[in-house]
C-alpha cells in the first residue's frame, strides 16, 4: 500500500522548498523560464529611472490557493492566464512565507502595513501599524483621491487606515466595498436577482452578517464612480460573481480618479470553507481570468499604460491534504508549511521579465518594496525590500 507523504515530519524549510521546486519544475518544463535565467541583483538606480507619475496596482487573493490547484502540474489548467499571459512578462517570487495569523482580514491588513497584525480577524478593527496608503499620502502629500482599496465586505471597511500615532484618520485610502454598494443601490425586494454577487464571509460559514448599504455607499456611486444607480445595477446584472463586481468598480476608479495606489482584494475562492471543491476551483479560475483583465485594463488606460507596476499575491495558502489536523483545501487552520507558503508575481516597467526568484521572502516585504518603488519611507514596517523588482 502506498505510504502517505509525511509533511508533518518534514521541516518547514524542506516543505517550503518543495513547494518552490514544484513551481519551478513546471515553469521550466513549460519553457517559460530559461534555466539560465539569472537572479537579479540589486539595482538601486532602477526605481529612480521609473517614469514620472509611476503607479502601483496590488491584487491580493483573500482566500488562499494551494499549489495543487495552481502551479503544480495538475493545477495548471486552472490558471492559464497567469501562466501563459502574465508569467512570461513577470518576475516571480516562488517562496513567499506568511508568518502571521491566517485569517483573511488580519492577513490582508498585515500585507498592507508590512507588519504582522494581531487583532481579532472578525472584528472591525483598524490595523495597529501605519498602512502603505498612509505612508504614501503623508510622505508625498498626496490627496485622498490618490489611494483606494476595493475589498470584499466582511470586515475590510477599516483596512484603509490605521490608528497608529502620527498616522490614522484622514491620511489613509478610500475604501469601496462593492457588495455594500450594490446592497445600497438595490431595493431590498429586488436583491434576489443579485444573490450571486452578494456572497459574503466564508471564513466561518455560520457567520454571515447581512449586507446593508447606506447613504455613504450611494454617494460613492455618484461622486466617485460617476455612475447612476441604474447604470451600476444594470452592469452588475451582467456579472457572475462578487469578484467581477470588484474589478468593475476598480476599473471605474481607474477611469475617474486614476489613483496612483490601487489595492484590489479578490475573495471568491474562499468559498472553499463551505467544503465544495468545485466552487473553490471555479473561484481560482475566475481570479486567474480577472488578473489578466486587470493587466489588460492597465495597458489600455492612458493614465496607467507604461507606468504601472502590478503585484499579484495570495494572502496565504491553504492546508495540505496530508496534514491530519486539517481537512485539505477547505481551511487554513493548521498553520502548516503549505498554508503559510505562497508566491508574488510582479509586472511592469523596470521588472525583469521571466525572472524566477527562489530565495525565501515574506509577504510583509511588499510594503517596503512599494515604498522604494514610489519614493517614500516605511519606517514602522518589518519587511525587507524585494530588490529584484526595483
Amino acid at each position, binding site marked *: *500500500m*502506498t505510504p*502517505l507523504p509525511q509533511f*508533518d515530519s518534514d521541516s518547514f524549510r524542506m516543505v517550503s522548498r518543495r513547494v518552490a521546486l514544484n513551481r519551478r519544475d513546471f515553469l521550466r518544463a513549460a519553457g517559460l523560464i530559461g534555466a539560465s535565467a539569472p537572479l537579479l541583483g540589486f539595482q538601486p538606480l532602477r526605481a529612480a529611472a521609473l517614469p514620472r507619475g509611476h503607479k502601483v496596482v496590488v491584487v491580493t487573493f483573500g482566500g488562499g490557493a494551494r499549489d495543487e490547484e495552481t502551479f503544480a502540474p*495538475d493545477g495548471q489548467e486552472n490558471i492559464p492566464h497567469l501562466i501563459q499571459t502574465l508569467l512570461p512578462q513577470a518576475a516571480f517570487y516562488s517562496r513567499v512565507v506568511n*508568518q*502571521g*495569523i*491566517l*485569517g483573511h482580514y488580519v492577513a490582508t491588513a498585515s500585507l498592507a502595513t508590512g507588519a*504582522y497584525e*494581531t*487583532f*481579532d480577524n*472578525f472584528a472591525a478593527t483598524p490595523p495597529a501599524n501605519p498602512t502603505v496608503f498612509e505612508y504614501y499620502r503623508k510622505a508625498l502629500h498626496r490627496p485622498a483621491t490618490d489611494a483606494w482599496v476595493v475589498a470584499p465586505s466582511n470586515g475590510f471597511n477599516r483596512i484603509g487606515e490605521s490608528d497608529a500615532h502620527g498616522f490614522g484618520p484622514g491620511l489613509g485610502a478610500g475604501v469601496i466595498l462593492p457588495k455594500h454598494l450594490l446592497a445600497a443601490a438595490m431595493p431590498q425586494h429586488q436583491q434576489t436577482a443579485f*444573490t*450571486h454577487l*452578494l*456572497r*459574503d*464571509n*466564508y*471564513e*466561518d*460559514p*455560520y*457567520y*454571515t*452578517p*447581512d449586507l446593508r448599504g447606506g447613504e455613504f455607499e450611494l454617494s460613492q456611486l455618484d461622486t466617485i464612480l460617476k455612475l447612476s444607480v441604474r447604470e451600476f445595477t444594470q452592469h452588475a446584472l451582467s456579472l457572475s460573481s462578487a469578484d467581477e463586481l470588484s474589478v468593475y468598480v476598480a476599473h471605474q476608479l481607474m477611469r475617474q480618479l486614476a489613483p496612483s495606489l490601487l489595492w484590489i482584494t479578490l475573495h471568491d475562492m474562499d*468559498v472553499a*470553507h*463551505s*467544503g*465544495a*471543491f*468545485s*466552487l473553490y*476551483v*471555479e473561484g481560482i479560475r475566475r481570479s486567474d481570468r480577472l488578473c489578466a483583465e486587470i493587466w489588460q485594463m492597465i495597458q489600455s488606460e492612458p493614465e496607467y499604460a507604461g507606468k504601472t507596476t502590478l503585484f499579484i499575491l495570495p494572502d496565504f495558502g491553504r492546508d495540505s*491534504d*496530508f496534514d*491530519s489536523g486539517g*481537512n*485539505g*483545501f*477547505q*481551511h487554513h487552520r*493548521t*498553520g*502548516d508549511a503549505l498554508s503559510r507558503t505562497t508566491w508574488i508575481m510582479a509586472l511592469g516597467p523596470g521588472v525583469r521579465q521571466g525572472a524566477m526568484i527562489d530565495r525565501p521572502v515574506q509577504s510583509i516585504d511588499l510594503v517596503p518594496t512599494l515604498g522604494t518603488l514610489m519614493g517614500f519611507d516605511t519606517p514602522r514596517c518589518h519587511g525587507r525590500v524585494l530588490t529584484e523588482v526595483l
Partner: protein
Amino acid sequence: MRPNQLTPASFAAYPPQASELVRSHLDMIRTLPLVFAALLLREARDYDWKFPAEQRAIAEQFSFLASLSDAQRTNLLQGFAAVRLPDSATRMDWIAHPQKFLDALTASLWSTHQIDAFRESAKLYADRLLQARTEQPPAIPRMTVVVLGAGLEQDGYPLFRKLRPHGVFVPQVADSGAWSELVAFAQKRAQSHPAPSGHIYIDGGEADAALSAHFATSSYAGLAPVRQQLLQRIGVILASPNSGPEQLRTAMADIQPDSLHWPDRSVDPVFQHFQLDVLTQGSGTQIFSTTFVQWSAREALRRAQPLTLILRFAPRQRSLNMNEMLSGKTQGNSPDPAGSLVDADMGAFYAWIDQQRLTGADQSTFLAWSQGRKQAVLIGPTLPRETTAGAPMTMQQMMAQLS
C-alpha cells in the same frame, strides 16, 4: 483554578464514565500544565459519548501519562508549560468547559505568534504517544467504498485522477444490479463481523433501507428535520446583539442531542452525538450534501475507525448567497450535477487518505465507483498500481478483487 487545585468534586458535572476515568487519574492530572490538562479534559469530558476506538485511545493516553515519572512528564510537556496565557483565559472554567477555553487559547496562540511552537510541542507529544502505543490491527482488513451516485455528471471531467495512480482503473463497470450487489456484499460483511459502530454508511440523499438495517447510518435527507432546527437556531443567534463567529461556535458546541427533535429515536446515543457533531462542527455540512458526506467520512474514519465504510454522494444544491442557504428556505433550489461530481471526486480521494491514516492501512482496500460514468478505481494490497483493467467488470468481480 490551577491543575494542582483539582479535587474529585471538580468533575461533578461530568457524565458517569468520564467522571470515573478522570477521578481515577486525579493525582497525575494535578501535575499537568494547565494548557495540556485542558486538552486532555476536552477529550475525557465527552468520554461517555465517544466511539469504542476513541475510548480506547483516551484510556491509553491516561495510562501512558501515568506510566511516566514526574520528571519525564515534565520534560515531555515543557512546551505546553511554556505557553503564555492571557489573563482572561486563566479565569475561564476550563474544567467544565474545556472547549471554550481551548477556543480562546487558539486565538491567543495565533495573535501572540506561539502557534508554531505549540504545533511543535503537540507533535513531539503525539510522536512519543504513538511510540508507546501497541496498536491492535483491525479484526479484518478495513474497506471503504465511495459511490458517486446517480445524477452526478459533467462532460469531459477526468474522473478519479488523484486515485488512479494508486490502483486499478476500471473504465467500464457493468451497471446492471451493481448497487444491489454492493449492498448484498456489505450486508454479508457486516453480519459476519459484528462490532459496535464497526460498519458505517453515509448517504448524501435518502439512505437505502436494505443497507441501513446492518450499518450505523447517517443520511443528509434523513437528518433534514435536525438540520432545519439547527439552521433556525443559527438564525436566532446571528440576529442577537453582539453575535459573532466565536459566540456562534460556542453556542453550537453547547447544543445537546436531547434538545432537538430527532426523526429516528432508535439511533444509538453515541452515533447520535456523532451525527450532531457533524452538523454543528463541520463547515458547510448543513448546506451542501457533498460536504456532509465528505466531513462525515473524515470524522467517522478518524473517530470510529470502522471496518467498513460506505459513502454515497448525491447531487448538492446550487451555490447561492450564504445567508439564503443558511436560512433553510432553499429546499426547492435546483441541484448542481457538474459541481457535485467534482466535489465527490475530491471527497473520494480524501476518504482514501483518511483510511490510510488508520491501523492496518497496508492491508486495507478501497473502491470508488461512479454510477453515472460506469467507471471505478480499485485499490488494495494485492492489486497493481496505475493500471487499467482490460475488460469490463461487474460489482461482484470488483468485490472479489478486493476480498
